């Protein structure tokens, strides 16, 4: 598809279970971001991938959160032993990075994965 694709769109899980959220970025976009948005709130940065560089994990809230990006394309965000406070919409975005390594700026967002932890 032409846009950023996220799955699942909705996930309901029980406290303590692990969940995986998937992001398929726009083809050719080397930068990929994960953000979290709680109800009525702004976006909280989680993690950033750029090409083959080490990811910027500075926003991950705890060691229960991890993410990987395979082959420089698809990314998976994993939350282990989910807690009720993990309930939020998880947004993925991708962007184009110029040959000079500078981020062109505009982020293209997916529709998000809404996670509800009971």
């Amino acid at each position, binding site marked *: 598809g032409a846009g*950023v694709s996220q799955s699942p769109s909705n996930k309901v899980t029980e406290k303590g279970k692990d969940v995986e959220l998937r992001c398929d970025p726009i083809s050719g976009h080397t*930068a990929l*971001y994960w*953000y979290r948005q709680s109800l009525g*709130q*702004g*976006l909280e*940065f989680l993690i*950033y991938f*750029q090409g083959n560089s080490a990811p*910027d994990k500075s*926003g991950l809230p705890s060691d229960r959160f991890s993410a990987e990006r395979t082959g420089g394309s698809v990314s998976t965000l994993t939350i282990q032993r989910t807690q009720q406070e993990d309930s939020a919409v998880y*947004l993925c*975005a991708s962007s184009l990075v110029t040959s000079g390594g*500078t*981020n062109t*700026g*505009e*982020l*293209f*967002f*997916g*529709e*998000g994965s809404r996670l509800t932890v009971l």
Partner: protein
Amino acid sequence: SQQGEEDPQALSIQEGENATMNCSYKTSINNLQWYRQNSGRGLVHLILIRSNEREKHSGRLRVTLDTSKKSSSLLITASRAADTASYFCAHSGYSTLTFGKGTMLLVSP
């Protein structure tokens, strides 16, 4: 926190009126961007203004940037009911983009 702040948090106007939203940030920036989010949807990029620019226009949107005050404003002219959404500013250093908490705009017919 390096998060920006939007002001006001909520704005309610009539169709045809102009809407102005403000954004402040705390760090040096490479550029500043505005995004729109319809309820339950992802964010859509509206406009980007670089740190060496002071004003930019796109259709009914006008963005200003004052780096000395670390602030920006978004003006939507001749608003329409379809402009109802949340609007976020985001400032960019080299890599990550830091978003504010947003302004919720309601445009009534």
